[in-house]
């Protein structure tokens, strides 16, 4: 068993940037040439991500329709004024916020950290079993997860059986509070990622640090607050960001569980966008909503970038 271990010496929280190699004369051509490995990835990104985003900006200002229209035309800001006057759009924004807050920021993040912290102390068997189960939930493809959690929350499903057993009242969240059901589904599905990130981060904390804290008589809480959390600050930031933004664009899970319904009680922005573009055939309007979603993602992103400025 080759166990790769992080270097045991307590490292600086962030490694110094590696120096440019000494003792080599280099010409500017060589300096540029060594950046070539970045090219393939960049080409892909330009073609398949930046291109569509540019196209998205263009389409958002047209009234393109999937059907029932001979030619699309420019309509300026019409799509956007329409969105802000559209109660369904406002509803989608609110639901998206709820979904993101409950399932990503609170659910996945806290649960992932808890799991990782407990795993550090647990016995190998339990750790392996729990890890396997949580990772299973993550590995299961999105649509399958949707089906599984649908059967779990269904009014004739397992959750009600458990509630009956505990003599608690039944629920029918898929119908009454679908946004809660899909949020829990997203927690179930996504926690493993946080768990992996935090496990990796915690295992990089040298044993000596925690041990010396222990010897100084710090209890578990104090150790967590004063030693552990500050040392994994980076991971928390990265994880929080990635989770939130993953969650912002969840589509398949909600689509499989509720299709955004009933009514529009679980219609988050991605579902709303799809519904407008394809079911209501308003590709232009749907794209405008998509652009807003992109902008929201972008804003989030900028906030996080500021938080993590020192890292890059």
């Amino acid at each position, binding site marked *: 068993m080759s166990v790769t271990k992080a270097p045991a010496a307590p490292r600086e929280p962030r490694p110094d940037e590696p120096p440019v190699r000494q003792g080599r004369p280099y010409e500017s051509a060589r300096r540029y040439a060594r950046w070539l490995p970045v090219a*393939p990835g960049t080409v892909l990104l330009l*073609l398949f991500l930046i291109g569509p985003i540019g196209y998205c900006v263009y389409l958002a200002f047209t009234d393109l329709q999937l059907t029932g229209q001979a030619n699309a035309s420019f309509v300026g800001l019409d799509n956007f004024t329409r969105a802000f006057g559209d109660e369904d759009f406002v509803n989608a924004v609110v639901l998206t916020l709820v979904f993101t807050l409950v399932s990503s920021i609170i659910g996945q993040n806290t649960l992932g950290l808890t799991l990782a912290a407990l795993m550090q102390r647990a016995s190998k068997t339990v750790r392996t079993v729990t890890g396997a189960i949580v990772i299973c939930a993550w590995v299961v493809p999105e649509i399958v997860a949707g089906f599984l959690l649908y059967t779990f929350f269904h009014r004739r499903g397992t959750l009600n059986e458990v509630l009956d057993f505990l003599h608690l009242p039944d629920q029918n969240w898929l119908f009454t509070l679908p946004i809660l059901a899909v949020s829990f589904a997203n927690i179930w599905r996504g926690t493993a990622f946080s768990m992996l990130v935090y496990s990796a981060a915690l295992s990089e904390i040298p044993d000596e640090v925690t041990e010396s804290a222990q010897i100084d008589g710090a209890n578990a809480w104090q150790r967590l607050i004063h030693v552990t959390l500050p040392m994994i600050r980076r991971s928390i930031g990265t994880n929080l960001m990635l989770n939130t933004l993953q969650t912002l664009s969840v589509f398949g899970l909600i689509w499989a569980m509720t299709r955004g319904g009933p*009514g529009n009680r679980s219609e988050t922005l991605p579902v709303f966008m799809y519904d407008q573009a394809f079911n209501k055939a308003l590709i232009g309007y749907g794209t405008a909503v998509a652009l807003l979603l992109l902008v929201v993602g972008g804003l989030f992103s900028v906030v996080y970038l500021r938080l993590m400025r020192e890292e890059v």
Partner: protein
Amino acid sequence: MRPTAPLALALSAVLTAGVLTGCSLGPDDDPNTVEIAFPKDIDNNVTVRDDYLAYVAKQFEKANPGKKVKLVPIQAPQNDYYTKIQIMMRSPNTAPDLVYEDTFLLQSDIESGYLQPLDKYLDKWDDWSKFEDTAKQAGESEDGKTYGVPDGTDTRGLWFNKKIFMKAGLPTDWAPKTWDDVLEAARAVKKNVPDVTPFNIFTGKAAGEAAAMQGFEMLLYGTQDQLYDEKSKKWVVGSEGFRDSLEFVDTVFKEKLGPHVSDALSPDIQTQVMTDHLPKEKLAIALDGSWINQQWIKTGGAPWPEWSETMGVAPMPTQNGQEPGKTSMSGGWAWSIPKKSGNHDLAWKMIETLQQPENAREWCIRGSQIAVREDVARDRKYLNAIPRTKFFTDLVDVTHYRPALPLYPRVSEAITVAMEKVTTGDATPAQGARSYDKQVRSITDGAVIKR
């Protein structure tokens, strides 16, 4: 040190080339193959249309040596099917050679330029004169050209289970005169036969056009109001009939006369009613289409030999029994040729094969359709094939057609949204009607008439 720049360059070049040369491995545009896109039911046991097309395809390949038929079944809830074929028809790469269109979408897709006019073929096709005029109009657009060849039509009415009616103390020759009679019967079933669903009416976004047409328009066209005002050429908003129709839907779900709301709103409700709720005798009254017995005959997905003794039919009454006392809606499907397919002539040949009198009759029998060809309509074999054919054919006298306009699909969508709001209890009928009015104003850019 070997310079490694060439490697990186080569790699990015390969990647870029791969992207840019995009030699399409898309659908092979083989001039000898006709690709047919059609909706496949989400219940895999239901293969009525698949089987029929396979049956005709065999004939076609035999009659045209060297030509092939490729079936492209698109398995999706109906609304997703409409979206999918529109997406396919946008690109020459993916456009099928022949597409099965619900007639309500024809005008909208013609407007988008997705379809090829068929006049040059129809002019040389003797059989076209045998089609009824209403059927011909379904595929005709404002420019006077024809874009679709219909293969059947339908009407709608009330199906009811006589055995359950007996238990509920209701007459087995039930003939409701008003909406209230329908609700009263459902209430009687609820009271006396508690373990069955009393009444089903399609509602909500997932059921899509089934909710708008089998559900809502069957009500609305039995009031004094309609969706579109032919005189002023404007869409109607704020009508009393619209509110009353939503009120009816509201009553059904508020009083729990219908299926459980979450079942009513699930995308497979149409299939479930046909292949499960009715044949398993879990549902007393269904407001549904003339074709649903296609599932109970031997080629169907849920063969049920006793259906003709068990199931009774009644026309949908008008709201308060006003003249003509009953109402119905008619639609149907048509074969069209996408403009961007490269195989128009062969596709037309396939339409001709599908519309040979024997094949047309075969479809009307298997699909439980009302014939649109006069020769088939007179055919003994067709008339005797399925009980109830006469009942539904007679409803053609009182039937209504959906506004054949490009905007109709979007108006229909707005109807289903309003229905869903009322069904879930998120809105009162009045609020639902107001939200519909707002939607329609936006869809039509304000070209509406207030009642």
